[in-house]
């Protein structure tokens, strides 16, 4: 018989009890046996299917209520069911990052005692985009309702959408240049925003006055609320069929089953041990004339990441050695880092329909307090936390690939790409103020796989359902018209399996006299690199963006002259004067254009992904297919892959390449002796020197590695390039925290 659950506990007592039971038994809610599952697996599966089909079908309906292109066209939302304690039970398809962020939001409500004030009642609506309350960044807006049954909260139903506009200082939903949270737009900090299944009028007025495109947010909110209410109705029917006791026990068994399946899958497909990764997104803003004084700095965020697969089948990520938070919107808090981990788990390990918080019990992240992965300044901005998350978790994907390779599951290996964004703000073709990021980047694609090339123009790391969308939708969304959208030849990380091919878009401003663009990329910009490839595959080259003001394109068109169709072509024509502009920029730096008007240009070359394996092991047929599709040129094929028209000639070339490598290389010990002289004095550029010093400000880990490897006694890097500045963590309320692990030097 199902366990009869007590109903007289407060939500806080239920949460405490749940955590205590797991601590004591190692099983979710102390469930050593899955009574319902074991007694009748078919009924149990029918119960699970009922929940899953509900959330997935409701999500499809929500698209038709929503307003913003992000939901209607680009799949940027999710909806799910949570236990009264806030643990995910069943999630729809969509942006899986929020499996656990919604969970943190519910726990924030419970642990801050909302049951007493502002009260949790039937019909209440709570909303959040606050990173201190589990959110990732201001554009990711959570809508949440409690579901009561006979006076008792029996679950929470929550939904998250990504809003294209969030009231930021710059205009688009994610800010590139704000120094702190006070520029990243409208914060809804775990607030009650509705009662009796209706949003409050004061809340809707607040949206209207604090957003440029409030219709998107408001109608998306209504879509999310409708979805929550539809699920509530469906759950009443499910309870009528299965019974309340079955429901209560069943949702908890599903989570414990999810935990067990996760451990089983890790033990079946991975190899225990320690995996190591390094990412180093470069941030430059000092070249932007209008940057806030606090944000006028250039620096590298060094993130060292040890991933340990334990003997017990758990996965732990440790970021000891990473540099500190700073005055920029790329900081992460616990919520964003949990979100980043979830996009990894749900796409790579838990993709079998059992996406729930069971897996969370078998993973752990050690996020050093005050570091870039756990900013502890109360005013820290996280608006573009993704600029840290994407390289980090892209690298985690790569590290998991090493594990699957070692175990023989080559079909599971996949890498990622950096995400590049184009933000547009100002006044649109209808005369309204506007701001948005063009989410065609949701098809930025991925890096090489263990059995194939990266998918050209596929989904990105952060949304497995991401699509590019119709150009026409984006032309309706803002004052711009596409004049080019195509693959970029010769732009990928070479390898036996290559990274996805880069692609690019070029726009002309239409219908506006006041519009500006912000352009940035996650880890591939400002001269940086995303992350390495696998087993001899190369990383991808960086990205490029372009803006040009006072352009003579309309005159050229009137003269029937060719106008540019790509970023590189526009750059070449601007350089040689075929296209004239009063001012322009094309290159890898973050950009914030001046006001652009009708006929001006902007564009982006999205970055490609890293490669897998030695490029000279690439199949001849794959090279010829890329040549036929125009993704590479013969010259590139020869240089990168040793390609010649016949297999025999190609093999001859490849033998020469191997000989050349041996000739041009030196024994590592010889390189070490020579390089040690440089390492002793720290003969590197200012930014790199400051990066090492900033890491040491947080932890001795990188310093110890450095001194051990180079066999030195003194660390040469001391100048951080910034003032040593102490800030206060928030106080007076509960917020999600990460376990800390005191650093101990490895023996």
């Amino acid at each position, binding site marked *: 018989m199902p366990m009869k659950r007590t109903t007289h506990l407060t939500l806080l007592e239920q949460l405490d009890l749940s955590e205590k039971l797991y601590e004591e038994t190692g099983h979710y809610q102390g469930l050593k046996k899955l009574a319902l599952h074991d007694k009748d697996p078919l009924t149990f599966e029918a119960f699970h299917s009922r929940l899953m089909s509900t959330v997935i079908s409701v999500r499809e309906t929500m698209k038709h209520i929503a307003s913003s292109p992000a939901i209607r066209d680009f799949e940027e939302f999710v909806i799910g069911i949570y236990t009264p304690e806030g643990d995910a039970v069943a999630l729809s398809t969509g942006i899986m990052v929020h499996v656990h962020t919604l969970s943190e939001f519910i726990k924030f409500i419970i642990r801050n005692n909302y049951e007493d004030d502002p009260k949790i009642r039937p019909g209440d609506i709570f909303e959040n985009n606050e990173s201190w309350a589990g959110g990732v960044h201001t554009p990711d807006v959570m809508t949440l309702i409690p579901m009561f049954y006979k006076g008792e909260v029996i679950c929470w139903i929550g939904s998250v959408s990504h809003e294209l506009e969030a009231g930021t200082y710059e205009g688009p939903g994610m800010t590139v240049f704000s120094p702190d949270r006070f520029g990243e737009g409208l914060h809804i900090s775990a607030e009650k925003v509705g009662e009796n299944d209706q949003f409050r009028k004061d809340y809707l007025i607040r949206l209207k006055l604090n957003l440029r495109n409030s219709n998107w947010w408001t109608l998306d909110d209504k879509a999310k609320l409708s979805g929550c209410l539809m699920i509530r109705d469906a759950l009443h029917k499910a309870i009528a069929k299965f019974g309340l006791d079955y429901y209560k026990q069943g949702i908890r068994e599903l989570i414990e089953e999810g935990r067990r399946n996760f451990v089983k899958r890790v033990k079946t*497909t991975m190899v225990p041990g320690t995996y190591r990764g390094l990412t*180093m997104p470069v941030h430059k803003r000092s070249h932007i004339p209008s940057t806030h004084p606090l944000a006028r700095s250039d620096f590298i965020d060094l993130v060292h990441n040890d991933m340990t*697969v334990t003997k017990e089948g758990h996965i732990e990520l440790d970021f000891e050695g990473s540099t500190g938070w700073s005055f920029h919107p790329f900081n992460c808090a616990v919520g964003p880092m949990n979100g980043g981990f979830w996009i990894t788990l749900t796409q790579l390990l838990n993709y079998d329909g059992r996406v729930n918080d069971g897996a969370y019990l078998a993973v752990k992240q050690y996020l050093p307090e005050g570091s870039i992965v756990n900013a502890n300044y109360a005013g820290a901005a996280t608006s573009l936390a993704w600029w840290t998350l994407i390289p980090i978790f892209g690298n985690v994907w790569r590290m998991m690939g090493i594990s699957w390779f070692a175990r023989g599951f080559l079909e599971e290996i996949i890498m990622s790409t950096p995400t590049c964004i184009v933000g547009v703000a100002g006044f649109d073709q209808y005369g309204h103020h506007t701001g948005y990021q063009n989410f065609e980047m949701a098809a930025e694609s991925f890096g090489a796989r263990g*059995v194939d090339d990266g998918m050209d123009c596929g989904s990105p790391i952060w949304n497995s359902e991401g699509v590019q969308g119709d150009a026409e939708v984006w032309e309706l969304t803002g004052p711009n018209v596409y004049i080019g959208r195509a693959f970029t030849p010769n732009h990928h990380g070479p390898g036996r399996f290559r990274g996805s091919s*880069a692609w690019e878009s070029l726009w002309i401003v239409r219908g506006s006299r006041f519009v500006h663009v912000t352009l940035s990329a996650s880890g591939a910009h400002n001269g940086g690199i995303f992350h390495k490839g696998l087993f*001899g595959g190369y990383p991808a*080259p960086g990205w490029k963006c372009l803006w040009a003001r006072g352009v003579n394109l309309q005159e050229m068109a009137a003269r029937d002259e060719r106008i540019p169709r790509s970023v590189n072509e526009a750059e070449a024509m601007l350089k040689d004067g075929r296209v004239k502009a009063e001012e322009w920029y094309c290159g890898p730096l973050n950009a914030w254009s001046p006001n652009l008007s009708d006929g001006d240009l902007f564009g982006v070359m999205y970055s490609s992904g890293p490669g897998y394996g030695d490029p000279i092991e690439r199949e001849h047929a794959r090279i010829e297919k890329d040549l036929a599709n125009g993704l590479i040129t013969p010259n590139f094929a020869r240089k990168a892959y040793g390609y010649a028209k016949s297999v025999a000639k190609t093999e001859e070339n490849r033998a020469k390449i*191997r000989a050349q490598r041996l000739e041009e*290389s030196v024994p590592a010990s010889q390189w070490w002796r020579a390089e040690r002289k440089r390492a002793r004095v720290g003969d590197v550029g200012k930014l790199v020197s400051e990066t090492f010093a900033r890491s040491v400000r947080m932890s001795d880990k990188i310093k110890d590695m450095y001194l051990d*490897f180079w066999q030195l006694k003194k660390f040469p890097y001391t100048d951080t390039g910034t003032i040593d500045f102490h800030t206060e963590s928030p106080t007076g309320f509960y917020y999600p925290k990460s376990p800390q692990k005191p650093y101990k030097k490895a023996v």
Partner: protein
Amino acid sequence: MSKETQTSQEVTRSLVHRELAWPDLFKLMRDPKSPDRFDEMIAARQAMVPWKNRILLPLGENLFIVAKNGKAIIKTLAGAELCAWNENWKMQCRVRIRKNTADFNKIFPPEHMTIDPELVEIREWICPKSGMLLDVDCVPPTYPVEIDFTPDLEAFYSDWLGRKLPVRL
């Protein structure tokens, strides 16, 4: 041989040789993960290498942990024996460093290459016997050389595979 009559070992061999068509790969992705895959993969790789040492764990397409004289060592496909299983094998390779724009442009076309060599250098770790690339790192200059993976061989063999590790660590 038709796909229907292929044994699991033959499918894994085809996977390792990258001879499976997409429908077969999709099936592998969808199917429950077989606990036999590791042994099948080891058998397929053992048949590919030109030496006799027993493969304990592959570390890359051209890099293996193998058993030799009762100990675990790291060995390349071409036969270069680099170091003990848990040591920094990269330091026994040859290395080519790309640290200026001209070096980078040998891989990336100039019109796309926006990596700043002052911030990042590319280190190519090369098999000293064959000239094959074993790994490519991209790190800030003077960053210590790290290996990407140190397995817990004892736990893997004893606890996960349930068999005795055939070497002394």
